[in-house]
């Protein structure tokens, strides 16, 4: 009985901890808040950066990528890719100037410690379709450089500010 109570208590503590971590991004360490969400792009190995998109000339890749983006990415990055509740803006030069191989590398491996899951659960062809769509979004000229953008509640520069600026 005592073991059972201990196990239940331990379970309750872990469950409370998981909910707390998930619901209080603002209380995370200052280090996470201030580090650039785009830093992962620079970590891509040269070989990965140099990979061309095999679906670059596929006429349907952009529209298929759009469907995938709406299904899997828009929840965090916003339907336009530039305004999301949890993920960084994707229509900034840091992302749009990155090579397709770099985006594929980040997409496949995720940025797990910063909340982006690995997307290798999608077949490789679908990840390339997503990359094709991402690159088709282009830079939103209304944006100021990433470093200069104020941080919003998510801790990421630019999120939630773009559309207000446009409006």
């Amino acid at each position: 009985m005592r073991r059972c109570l201990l196990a239940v208590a331990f379970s309750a503590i872990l469950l409370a901890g998981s909910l707390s971590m998930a619901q209080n991004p603002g209380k995370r360490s200052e280090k996470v808040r201030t580090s650039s969400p785009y830093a992962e792009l620079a970590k891509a190995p040269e070989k990965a950066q140099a990979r061309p998109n095999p679906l670059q000339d596929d006429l349907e890749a952009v529209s298929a990528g759009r469907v995938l983006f709406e299904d899997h990415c828009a929840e965090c990055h916003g339907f336009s890719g530039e305004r999301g509740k949890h993920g960084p803006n994707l229509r900034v030069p840091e992302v749009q100037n990155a090579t397709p191989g770099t985006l594929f590398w980040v997409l496949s491996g995720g940025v797990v410690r910063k909340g982006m899951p690995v997307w290798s659960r999608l077949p490789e062809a679908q990840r390339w379709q997503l990359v094709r769509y991402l690159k088709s979004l282009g830079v939103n000229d209304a944006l100021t450089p990433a470093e200069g953008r104020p941080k919003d509640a998510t801790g990421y520069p630019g999120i939630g500010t773009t559309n207000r600026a446009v409006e």
Partner: protein
Amino acid sequence: MSWSVRHVVVVAILIVWFASLPRAARAQENPYIVTYDQFLEEPRNLEIEYFSTYGTQRGGNNYHSYWVEFEYGATAWWTTEFYLDAQSTMHDSTVATGVRWENRFRPLKREHFINPVLYVEYEHVNGADKILKELEGHDVESDFLTPNGEARKETKNEAELKLILGSNFKGWNVSENFTFVKNLTNEPWEFGYALGASRPLGLKASAKRCSFCPQNLVAGAEMYGGLGDRYHLGLQGTSQYLAPVLAWNIPSGWTLRVSPTFGLNSNSHQFMLRLGIAREISDFGGMIKRAFRGHS
């Protein structure tokens, strides 16, 4: 109310409840029912799953066991799940068989050729448990012959550890699970395994959203069984199963799974039909947060 009518009512209520859940997220699930792959639930998403196993029983009554899973993505590297289990044995009774709480942790920051996930579970179940969510030790078909009224008197508190390894290669997912179970009373460690391989029928996505596109169907097979215990390691006296698996990921956020399962030796149930239905709710964590804080 008869046994079958009761089940139809329960399943109907679950389906109506699932359908009324808000903000479904498009799932991209592998078809396994027993094997775990290396992928965790997306952060803040909640997946609610209902699974059924219809099992044949030699020398006794066939049964229908079922469980509901609440799977929550606490972070991108941590998924936590809560289970409620029950079973109905024909010509016997329907009993709740226990609760489980599991956690899966992804220790590595990035994707590699082989991706480990660590799994820790606490189970509080009784002896009437028949869900066969995992097999370990010397679990055999004849264990299920005990009538529910007697079997439910036995209570088990178990800790279960798993090493989950998963790889993706040319559209295939290959996953291996190694299970270590310890009854928290003075019983030896028991071991088990599960292996799975699956692949979507189509690797490219369609330009238009569709329900029956080949990329929404994932087919494969899984094999699982016990590996004995600390004192008697090996396949002798264990049960072993082989099961084709098929998942249908519907754009509306539902995932359906089906798996006819075949026993591979005389200790195994000859046949089981396993079905699963799941729905993923996006940003459940955010909904809870807003509910407690109010809309700003």
